[in-house]
């Protein structure tokens, strides 16, 4: 009873006895810093972005706990916010990778806490590991999906069936002077997919409305 009186929330700083410990703050800070370094140097953007997401999540969760919120609840709340924000970002062109990373962090963080408890560990440790792993797995899954969608065949199909998903990023035209194309206009157009950032180009030569030459190109 005496011990309980010391650690119960007289100062409203440790309502559950699980307030963030120094390692939790350090881990979140290290993740954000390492993530920024990985992204800035281009060494591992996917892992770097994942670490920034998980580090930021832990920082926010730690802050909520430090402000008096039940630390377990703050972690679960942060996981929920990650999933909701991640789903929202998935619908914003160019933000899909971040969204996927946040969804992964939220889901695996939430599950990781319970798994850790079931295995006899603390909820916080499992949540931390789950959040880190989930953010990286989410980013990698997104990358894998984008790679799958960015094969030449898939990009051509998307360009033909969903032209509104492609924005023109560069175009150059010139007079065609080859014997068979004389009098025609040669146009090189470069497009970028607004969702996957995949790039596709077209080269056409037309004369009086007739398409004499047309092909796609990639890898620019």
């Amino acid at each position: 009873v005496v011990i309980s009186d010391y650690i119960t929330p007289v100062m409203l700083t440790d309502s559950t006895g699980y307030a963030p410990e120094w390692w939790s703050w350090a881990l979140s800070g290290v993740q954000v810093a390492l993530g920024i370094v990985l992204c800035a140097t281009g060494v591992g953007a996917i892992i770097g972005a994942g670490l920034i997401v998980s580090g930021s999540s832990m920082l926010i969760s730690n802050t909520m706990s430090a402000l008096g919120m039940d630390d377990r609840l703050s972690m679960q709340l942060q996981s929920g916010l990650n999933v909701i924000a991640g789903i929202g970002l998935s619908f914003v062109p160019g933000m899909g990778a971040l969204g996927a990373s946040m969804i992964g962090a939220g889901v695996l963080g939430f599950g990781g806490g319970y798994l850790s408890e079931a295995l006899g560990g603390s909820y916080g440790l499992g949540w931390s590991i789950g959040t880190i792993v989930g953010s990286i797995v989410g980013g990698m899954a997104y990358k894998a999906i984008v790679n799958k969608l960015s094969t030449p065949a898939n990009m051509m199909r998307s360009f033909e069936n969903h032209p509104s998903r492609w924005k023109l990023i560069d175009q150059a035209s010139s007079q065609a002077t080859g014997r068979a194309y004389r009098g025609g206009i040669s146009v090189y157009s470069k497009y970028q997919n607004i969702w996957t950032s995949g790039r596709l180009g077209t080269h056409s030569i037309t004369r009086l409305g007739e398409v004499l030459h047309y092909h796609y190109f990639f890898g620019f």
Partner: protein
Amino acid sequence: MTNKEIILDALINDSEAITQIKEYFHLLSVEISLEELNVVLEDLVEDEFIFIDEIWVNELGEKPYTITDKGKQEWEKIR
């Protein structure tokens, strides 16, 4: 025009991959096999009239050929 001249003509405006060059032959109603076309392209690269460019690949993964200044001078002769 000879096959070499047709290739230079096909490339005088833009870089093209072998598939597009073959289409140019077809457009001029000139029959040429891929093997034959490859041999002529190799000769032109060796003579420095054209070079294999790295600017893009087409849907078949083929790199384009680009005409050199020497190739342009040669093309002027057949114009």
